[in-house]
């Protein structure tokens, strides 16, 4: 049977691994290729790289990282951050990524999703959604709103409506990131994850809030997600991928335990 996936997310800035966007100062925490190889060997089911390099001129450094990763790890990986055109998608796919993740650019220009799906197939197009809890209104009936710029700009768009729209436009997968839960280590935003999982028939990745193995289990069972994104809880050795998987498996979630 199909297994639930655990996906470490690596933030890359100027070719180096860095702490998340919300941390000021961007501490260098290592080599992304080395870290990806470690995750590959430790049983990660997939890996996500997020380019948070500010300047467009340094894009080449990031593409070089993608190429080096592709030569060394033989599991799927996706690339997000700064993808604003079909040409951007083509560059990372040619460098060796299986999938591209589009986020803000897709909210501003939803044609990007269908153009990407037409050019590379739906399986290659992940839509990343940043979502913030709000008061339910006629415009935002679910009480979950799409935001961009790391949560600073609300788009007046209901997260459930947007998820369905992304599916209709040809997205192959959705990565649902809760701005409220992100960085708290208090658990994924399960209500949001479940609402979106139930609203679409493409796979959904839960993102933001993982603090312990129970949270991962909850994301894939209560949240009905196909996969859970993890970052700080595995980056600093607090938990291994194996520990997360064995816990979930012991509590009834199907996981890949041999690699």
């Amino acid at each position: 049977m199909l297994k639930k996936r655990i996906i470490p997310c690596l933030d890359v800035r100027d070719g180096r691994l860095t702490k998340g966007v919300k941390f000021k100062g961007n501490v260098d925490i290592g080599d992304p290729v080395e870290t990806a190889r470690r995750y590959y060997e430790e049983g990660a089911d997939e890996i996500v790289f997020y380019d948070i390099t500010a300047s467009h001129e340094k894009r080449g450094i990031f593409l070089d990282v993608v190429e080096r990763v592709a030569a060394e790890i033989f599991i799927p990986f996706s690339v997000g951050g700064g993808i604003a055109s079909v040409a951007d998608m083509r560059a990372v796919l040619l460098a060796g990524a299986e999938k591209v993740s589009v986020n803000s650019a897709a909210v501003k220009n939803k044609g990007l999703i269908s153009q990407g799906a037409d050019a590379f197939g739906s399986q290659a197009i992940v839509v990343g959604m940043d979502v913030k809890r709000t008061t339910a209104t006629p415009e935002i009936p679910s009480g979950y709103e799409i935001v961009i710029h790391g949560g600073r700009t609300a788009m007046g768009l209901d997260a459930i409506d947007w998820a369905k729209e992304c599916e209709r436009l040809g997205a192959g997968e959705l990565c649902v990131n809760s701005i409220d839960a992100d960085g708290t280590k208090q658990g994924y935003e399960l209500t949001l994850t479940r609402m979106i999982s139930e609203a679409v028939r493409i796979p959904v990745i839960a993102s933001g809030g993982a603090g312990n193995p129970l949270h991962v289990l909850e994301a894939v069972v209560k949240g009905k997600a196909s996969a859970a994104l993890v970052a700080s809880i595995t980056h600093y050795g607090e938990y291994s991928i194996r520990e997360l998987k064995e816990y979930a498996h012991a509590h009834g979630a199907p996981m890949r335990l041999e690699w």
Partner: protein
Amino acid sequence: MLAILDYKAGNQTSVRRAFDHLGIECRITAEPEVLLAAQGVIFPGVGAAGQAMRQLAATGMDAVLRRLVRENRPLLGVCLGCQILVEASEENDTKTLGVFPGVCKRLPSELEDEDGQPIRIPHMGWNSLDFRQDCPLFAGIKDHSEFYFVHSYYVHTDPGLVLAVARHGLEFCAAYGRDGLWAVQFHPEKSGRVGLQLLRNFADYCALRSGHA
């Protein structure tokens, strides 16, 4: 040497990287003489059946593929390459190569998984194989090992050809073929150690067949 049939399939470079990593000589090529001289050919593929068939026809690669099969050369179809070796695909209502009997169908969305949840399409992620026949491709790989899948269509073929099945709402053919002419629905080039083992097994088989083992 192995050859990867070049028709600009999305995963052809990933397949080459996997063979590079294994230290197995491998070339991406559309030259018929190189393909026909190779110990074995990998027929990759990602995307839609209609577009792939047009690309194969436009480049003359469809004729090369049929000749490889006619001459009984080792061939490994991967993902879309696996799907278009049968006669027809529901995807874009396409007539495909017809090397093997069968058709390619869309996974029915009304199905449920083992937990009673509606299945998600594409079938994306790691799923276990149940071997149905011994095959040199599976040497050193345990039954029920997990491989990485990404697809929305599946091959329905002669049960006698089915080498392994997997389950996503329904049981479907995950690997089929005979005598060195094989096809796999999953992506061995993205399936970690077991996937690399399968590619190595194919290379070993090809070397043995050509007497260069």
